[in-house]
């Protein structure tokens, strides 16, 4: 990355090219997400970008009930990546009501109208 932009813009630009990056602190070794200018664990400003392996587990789940005209029901989950960070996401290959806590998922990047977004797909084996 260059010094001339913040981490939020860099992260989004990478997503827009299909690449999902999270940070790893060189000070304390912990992974960091969402992107920060300094590590919230140890205050180091030395953070590397890494590609997460993509595996994760659903930590919490809700189905937002909406009328069809408003887009219909949609899953909103919190996913713990195996690297130890949590993020909001959608489990995209299951019906909204079929997502369970403990479900193993894989991250992928959807690029739509030039804008990247991290989504998740449930993987075989179902909930742990």
């Amino acid at each position: 990355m260059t010094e001339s932009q913040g981490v939020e813009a860099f992260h989004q630009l990478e997503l827009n090219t299909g690449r999902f990056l999270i940070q790893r602190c060189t000070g304390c070794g912990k992974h960091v997400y969402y992107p920060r200018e300094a590590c919230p664990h140890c205050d180091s400003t030395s953070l590397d970008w890494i590609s997460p392996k993509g595996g994760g587990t659903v930590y919490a789940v809700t189905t937002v009930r909406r009328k069809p005209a408003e887009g219909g029901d949609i899953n909103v989950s919190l996913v713990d990546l195996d690297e130890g960070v949590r993020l909001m996401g959608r489990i995209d290959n299951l019906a909204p009501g079929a997502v369970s806590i403990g479900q193993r998922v894989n991250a992928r990047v959807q690029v739509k109208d030039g804008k990247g977004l991290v989504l998740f797909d449930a993987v075989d084996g179902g909930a742990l």
Partner: protein
Amino acid sequence: MSTLRGLRGSAAIVGVATFGNGLSPGFTDMELLARSAHAAVEDAGLRMSDIDGLCTASGGASMWPLPVIEYLGLNPRYIDGTMLGGSSFIAHLLPAMQAIRSGQCSAVLVCYGSAQRTSTVGRREMGQLRRFVDPQPYEYPYEPMLPASAYALAASRHMHEFGTTREQLADVAVAARAWARLNPDAFMRAPLTREDVLKSRMVSEPLSVRDCCLVTDGGGAYVLVSAERAKSLPKKPVYVLGNATAVWNRQISSMRDLTATSAKQSGADAFAMAGMKPSDIDVLELYDAFTINTILFLEDLGFCPKGEGGPFVESGMIAPGGKLPVNTNGGGLSCTHPGMYGIFALIEAVRQLRGEGGDRQVIGAMTALAHGNGSTLSSQSTAILGTAETL
């Protein structure tokens, strides 16, 4: 903590008022606030010209103390516009006590008003505006219905870890309604059963519309002075024995454990300042924006062990006639919730300690805990109040 112990009981709430609860078409936020503020100052036996400290916050205007000072004609020496969401008006207590103790001011007015239900700028418009002025780029793209979906996520985790059921969540709403039926000022007073809650429209699973707080208009205000000055004012003083505020996260996706809120910290700190423990408390007013809140706060504030909040509320403990009266006005679920509820929880605690509760009065109550929550389980502020006997 030793210096905070020195502030225990140093200030008292001597005036309270609410105005316009429910539907107040044609009123602005400011008008609801001003009516409440004047009534609270009058209740304190003071005049607006006696007020030299102001605390207020707004869900919309970021410089809200300025128009409030102008509108009320104040010239405060102490101003606190700290905005932590719904907990703000409880979090305003401790700094105001310190300002009174230091001599910076002598009479602090804490006030709020919102025409959220009938205003032409409704929640939808405010929500859209917030996306621009207060972006959450790592949550908004997934279209959570905030704040409800954040609390739904917390409820899902509590159910997963501890076996909490939708029926137990419903019991929180049923208890709140049973209290509201005793309160002529409550907005929703029709009978409500567990089955009614379970059958009501689902909003964000597992929370139905009856698991969610009301959307009302309304204003509330209280006046804080030194304990010394309180003795010469007309109403029975309600002393602030402890207050503490904690924030561990803003976004639900940044909350480390969705079953444990920073109320653990605010509650422990407030109890330490008061030199008290949960079993010393006679009546609780907990910010019930959603049914899961009451369960989380009963646990985090130490009224039952972590994970046992579901069976605790199922036992009828918190409803009228139960051993631990909770949300005696009907709470945010059935009494009032004009955008931010914290000040109304505190006002109900004061009314209970004054013995002004009417049919819902907890007989002999001498201690009360009022707990505020803000945003998406983000800010927590706990106040412990007591009558003169507790000093």
